[in-house]
């Protein structure tokens, strides 16, 4: 790395800020993205520190205090159909809902990038075969595929993560393949190849740095979808099993209370909505800050 001493040339060298620091600056100047980030952060922290924050045990019910309205003493957000404190269950519910929503995207990001970058770099018939196979998954709308897979695999946290990961891998792989193919045909990659760099070096030094950004931004936009789908699976009874607190499942069991305590019944869904929209707005801000066109 060539370091030019500021004094040695005469004119003071102006160090241009790096790409990531300018992305960070643009992001912090975007009020909507920062507000969204703050909400995500608060919900995440509340979920992580649930035992400290939640006022009551999320599992302990009370037959006398079933379906209390919002702002009942001791039940600030009311109680559910088994008399459990809603606020505590919502705080604890964030743990599973966030975990189930984010994990498939992380796994999909790893799997999809791996497949997309390798195949995109390899090109040729390997590319054709893998990408055509991936196309098959696009014949299923993602909700349908997720429900079909977890319906066949059976209910459970693990199965719900597996099916959502299978839904996201093809989507991320397709983007990864497209950006890798684009980068591979750029002149600097050709120059590196001519100067004798091996495929591994080219991928590590020249490709990764250029493709991971766009793939990452695309993946963050999937978190919102993933949250909705994961809670949707639990809502159908395909994800988390009772009595565990999870927003989708809570929404399902509270459906019976729609007429007696409508506002309490709608609360878990409001949490899913708030989290999903915050992830969406943050991802939008990130895309603008990174100047990626979709």
């Amino acid at each position: 790395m060539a370091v030019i001493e500021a004094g040695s040339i005469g004119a003071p060298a102006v160090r241009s800020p790096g790409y990531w620091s300018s992305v960070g600056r643009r992001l912090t100047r975007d009020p909507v993205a920062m507000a969204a980030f703050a909400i995500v952060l608060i919900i995440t922290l509340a979920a992580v520190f649930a035992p400290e924050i939640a006022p009551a045990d999320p599992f302990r019910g009370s037959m006398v205090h079933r379906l209390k309205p919002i702002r009942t003493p001791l039940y600030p957000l009311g109680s559910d159909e088994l008399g459990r404190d809603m606020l505590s269950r919502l705080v604890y519910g964030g743990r599973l809902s966030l975990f189930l929503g984010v994990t498939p995207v992380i796994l999909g990001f790893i799997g999809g990038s791996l497949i997309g970058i390798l195949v995109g770099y390899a090109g040729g018939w390997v590319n054709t075969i893998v990408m055509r196979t991936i196309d098959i998954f696009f014949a299923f709308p993602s909700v349908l595929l997720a429900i079909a897979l977890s319906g066949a695999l059976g209910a459970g946290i693990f199965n719900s993560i597996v099916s959502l990961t299978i839904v996201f891998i093809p989507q991320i792989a397709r983007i990864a393949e497209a950006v890798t193919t684009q980068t591979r045909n750029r002149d600097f990659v050709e120059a590196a190849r001519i100067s004798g760099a091996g495929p591994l070096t080219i991928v590590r030094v020249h490709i990764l740095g250029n493709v991971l950004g766009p793939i990452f931004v695309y993946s963050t936009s999937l978190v919102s979808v993933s949250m909705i789908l994961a809670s949707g699976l639990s809502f159908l009874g395909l994800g988390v099993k009772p009595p565990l607190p999870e927003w989708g499942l809570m929404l399902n069991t509270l459906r019976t209370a729609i007429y007696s305590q409508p506002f309490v019944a709608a609360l878990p869904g409001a949490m899913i909505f708030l989290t999903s929209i915050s992830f969406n707005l943050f991802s939008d801000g990130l895309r603008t800050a990174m100047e990626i066109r979709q």
Partner: protein
Amino acid sequence: MAVGVSIVCFLLAHIAPGDPLTAIMPIDATAEQQAQMRAAYGFDRPLPIQYGIWLWKVLHGDLGNSIATGRPVVSEVTKAVGNSLILAAVATLIGFGLGTFFGFVAGYFRGGLLDRLASVVSILGVSVPNYWLGMVMVIVFSALLGWLPSTGAGPGGSTEWRPDLDHLRYMILPALTMSAIPMGIIARTVRALVADILSQDFVQALRAKGMRELAVFKHVVRNAAPTALAVMGLQLGYLLGGSILIETVFAWPGTGFLLNTAIFQRDLPLLQGTILVLALFFVTLNLIVDVLQSAIDPRIQRG
């Protein structure tokens, strides 16, 4: 493509833990009886051969019998598809109409109050969990206001849709709920398209030579149509696929409801058949969109 879809649908029944017969097998069945049953249903043969036999039957319109009810899957699915399609069609009309409208307004008046309003509506539409929106609809219009019925397809538990006023009332809430997401996505797409087209040189040229705004608008529509159509085609498919959650909320007797039943009774032939029909529908839809696209814009080639 259709072959790939059929393979995935076929494999669905085989990624299930245990085998497809567990649901109907008596608990005290001996190993010998189990083997007999397996042989009777052909589950003892190698997978590719099972697939071949299954595909042969499917091509002849035989999707097998529902394990739970014993009735042919085909007849169950066709009845449900009809109900789903009616609901989807109405939701499509609402969602596409409003989405296109909001998108055009926002794209034309960029930065204005209307644009911001349309952008808010579209981001809300994209992020809302539709099953929750369905519940909120029921809470507002059914529980609090008492204007509309909350569940079912018609009075008296009617499972067949008829074009009369009573049945129409049952359709309003699910259709509105279903239209929210496509509306958001289409509004976003159309807004970006319109804004992009309006900033192009040819629009300025058209205006410079004195063309009236209405005629310019026609050019904008023509240029936005192919991409908008592609997005709409995809959305119609997602609408059908996503209907399972909404149909569950409203107990609408369509494919979503059928899938839900199939999943809970572990009725794998029914699951397989419903998914296959929906996926093939989606593939056909995409094909139609491709053809339409190249009809509107000759520069787009089918491939």
